[in-house]
């Protein structure tokens, strides 16, 4: 089926998310939509899927103009979508999720679950998925959940399939498998729109590439284009894809973690017997697919987790069991993985956010009074130093772009006297310019002789920054390997396999 978008314009208030976008997807092709976070790719696809109504423009399928009042219409027309945040109900079984919205029923509206199970099995067999129709979706690993999303779309005979950032949650191996599935779908005549910001994947699988920047189509590229060409097109200027750094000059071990267990509220060991050292002046990257205990590990170091056993020490002093306040005072800087949830108070000004974790002592507070004059000076200085783009230091932090929000968090943490720096997903969802900046600051922190821990699910970032890499899987560290370890080895480790020659 041929899909055509003509002159799509979508506004949110004064923000133009899509500006007069034209796009044609030929039958049986894999068409990549490449663009930075916030460029308007997902908005465009939500317009196509009927979730948003565009202000201007039209959608055509096989040259017939379509009117989609909602996703139901889009699905009936043959458009399927694999969402970035899976649209699955965790407490339902696979079969129930697949049948939802087009249920087969018997007497009195009774669900025909057998038919749904058969459908799941039939599609699973076609693509070599191993999906149990009766498993609860919430119990499945994310890679399998994504397959359920694909099965769901295919069970409605989708002719055009949209994949919205599908690889963000996958291991490299799962990504390869997904590419194979896409090619198989293509050979069956399905048209595929593949949305991503990862250059490597685009070049591997795309037939054609359309690049979107700031809501506009800025050009087409062929899959033979080089990484730097694609990146320049995506960002609008030439960018450094590699992080410039000197070899590390590691000193003595700063952070020592021994036999750390973190137990969640259900009694599961989300961090299981983890031990590692981070030396002064080196970056230890913790790699792994989202949800393998990295979050809980960093929170345990900060004292944010309630059920922790094991030993954590920094420069010889034990941090185990201390309050968050005392751990911060010991010189631990922390960038949480969700800046809007844990990193900032969106309703506070930039200046207020910059003093958030030092509100108990001079120079920001004297005798219980905020030192606003000092704060203004300090905030102005940090705004310039960290290149925070904002109207003034009294703008609300929630109004900033992701990249600038992250700079505020970074400025706050790095302006303290640090003995350890822990950053969780420091570049998630921010623009390439800001990523460059964040990476440079992290390397500078390392070069100042501070042990740095970076948690990242992006293999590119891990490889770019790390002096050593610890790979986590299901709460355990699979192995700690040098920073120059090949990606395919890291990929296997992220799936829980211990390659020979690696000390676990």
């Amino acid at each position, binding site marked *: 089926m041929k899909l055509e978008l003509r002159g799509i314009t979508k506004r*949110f208030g004064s923000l133009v998310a899509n500006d007069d976008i034209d796009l044609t997807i030929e039958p049986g092709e894999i068409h990549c939509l490449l663009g930075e976070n916030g460029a308007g790719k997902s908005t465009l696809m*939500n317009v196509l*899927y009927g*979730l*948003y109504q565009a202000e201007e423009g039209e959608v055509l399928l096989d040259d017939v103009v379509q009117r989609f009042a*909602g*996703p*139901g*219409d889009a*699905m*009936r027309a043959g458009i399927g*979508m694999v*969402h970035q945040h*899976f*649209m*699955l*109900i*965790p*407490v*339902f079984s696979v079969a*129930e999720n697949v*049948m*939802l*919205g*087009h*249920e087969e*029923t018997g007497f*009195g*509206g*009774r*669900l025909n679950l057998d038919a749904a199970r058969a459908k799941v099995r039939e599609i699973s067999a076609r693509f070599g998925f191993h999906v149990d129709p009766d498993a609860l979706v919430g119990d499945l*690993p994310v890679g399998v959940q994504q397959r359920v999303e694909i099965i*769901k779309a295919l069970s409605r005979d989708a002719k055009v399939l949209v994949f919205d950032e599908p690889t963000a949650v996958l291991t490299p191996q799962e990504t390869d498998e997904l590419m194979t599935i896409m090619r198989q779908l293509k050979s069956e005549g399905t048209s595929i729109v593949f949305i991503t910001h990862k250059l490597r994947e685009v070049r591997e699988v795309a037939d054609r590439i359309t690049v979107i920047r700031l809501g506009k189509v800025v050009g087409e590229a062929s899959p033979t284009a080089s990484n730097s060409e694609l990146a320049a097109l995506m960002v609008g200027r030439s960018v450094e894809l590699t992080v410039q750094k000197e070899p590390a000059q590691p000193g003595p071990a700063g952070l020592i973690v021994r036999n750390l*267990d973190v*137990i969640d*509220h*259900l*009694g*599961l*060991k*989300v961090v*299981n017997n983890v031990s590692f050292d981070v030396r002064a002046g080196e970056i230890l990257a913790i790699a792994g697919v989202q949800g393998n205990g990295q979050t809980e590990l960093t929170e345990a170091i900060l004292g944010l987790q309630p*059920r922790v056993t094991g030993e954590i020490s920094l420069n010889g002093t034990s941090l185990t069991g201390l309050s968050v306040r005392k751990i911060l005072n010991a010189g631990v800087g922390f960038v949480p993985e969700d800046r809007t949830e844990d990193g900032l108070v969106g309703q506070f000004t930039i200046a207020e956010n910059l003093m958030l974790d030092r509100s108990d002592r001079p120079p920001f507070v004297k005798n219980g009074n905020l030192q606003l004059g000092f704060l203004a000076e300090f905030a102005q200085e940090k705004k310039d130093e960290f290149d925070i783009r904002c109207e003034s230091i009294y703008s609300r932090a929630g109004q900033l772009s992701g990249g600038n929000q992250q700079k505020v968090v970074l400025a706050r943490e790095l302006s303290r006297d640090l003995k350890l720096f822990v950053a969780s997903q420091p570049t998630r969802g921010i623009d390439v310019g800001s990523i460059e900046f964040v990476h440079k600051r992290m390397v500078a922190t390392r070069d100042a002789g501070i042990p740095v821990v970076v948690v990242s699910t992006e293999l590119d970032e891990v490889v770019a920054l790390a002096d050593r890499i610890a790979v986590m*899987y*299901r*709460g*355990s560290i*699979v192995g700690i390997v040098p920073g120059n*370890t*090949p990606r*395919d*080895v890291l990929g*296997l480790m992220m799936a*829980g*396999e*211990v*390659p*020979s*020659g*690696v000390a676990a």
Partner: protein
Amino acid sequence: MTTTTAPESISASLESATIKSWKAPIAYAIFTLIAILLFVVNGRDGVSRFRLSNEADVIQLAPIDNPTRLTCILLVVLLIAITVYATWLSSRAKRVPLWLTILFAVAFMWAFLTWAAAGETIPITGLLLGTVALSAPLIFGSLGGVISERVGVVNVAIEGQLLAGAFLSAFVASVTGNPWAGLVAAMVAGVLVSFMLAVFSIRYIVDQVIVGVVLNVLVAGLTSFLYSTVLTSNTPLFNSPPRFPRISIPILSEIPILGPVLFRQTVIIYIMYIAVFVVWWGLFRTKWGLRLRAVGEHPQAADTVGIRVNPTRFWNVAIAGAIAGFGGAYFTLGSVGGFTKEMTAGAGFIALAAVIFGRWDPIRATLAALLFGFATNLQNVLGAIGSGVPSEFLLMLPYVVTIFAVAGLVGYVRGPAASGKPYIKA
């Protein structure tokens, strides 16, 4: 290094740690202590008689005579044994099974009844019969609550729906002289209250709890006003609804104990049995229930498969109101036989507690409602036989038992994920 073999693989599921939970043994110990103090230290002498049959029953069961002091001591020994066993289980990091708690509760209740009825007779069938009857509005209310919360709208207005149902059913049944018309009117009244809840919470995105509370106050005020101005102006015409008679179902009603309890009731109770089953079956076995639960769990996911979230919420909140309103008719057509000011007396809030105690499941919520109904009726029966227990204590005890039961039994409770959250599309 690049040649990788995979000799070792880490298990795909997380290891679980053993967490010792002392909640159950501590709760048992507290109750055992209360039992020792009341039933043994402050024990009574005499014989407590439990009557199991009425004179009219075809099959007569002999009454049970419990020598008060001996029975109490034996039961307290049993309670101590259960507590010790639970402590042993917990120290070995094992779960305390549900049957043990039920056994404990039954033993405690038996001891309490024996102690309270020293020298008296307790009609067991009467106690249970009243339990079922008094639970009726709670059960209907909690079914309404379950449906509403499962679809994503917190229903604090159950009290208002019950009260509106009670009022309108009394009025309509009196004027028409037909109790069936009263039942229909009760449902209409519940739906009207639901419409207001739905419009404000779904269309105008007002906080659902606040709308619910305001509706309760509104209905209480409105019915009180209309009661004093209209109903009392001509009571025989406006507030003398015909009551449904008790119907004995042949054969079934002659089963010892259970027969009189379950099958000598009014038609409202028989409809209740059907309603509980239909709501349970509908929620978990039909397309209606699947969509309803999807909307309450993850409205966006429901939207992306073409389910219209807000209309689904609107109409199911209306259905919930109809069921809760129906329960309100029990007060006027099933028991009292006339409307009085604020006659629901907080039953809606107890139904709300039953929804949560029952973990948003119609069957469990019904059992929870029965427990609350038992509590209420126990107080009536003990008051009637004139046992020496202070009435304030009787009022309090069942609820204390319930609080401990909730704390000890209901662990990690998870409601519908999107309950209380309005769905706003961009």
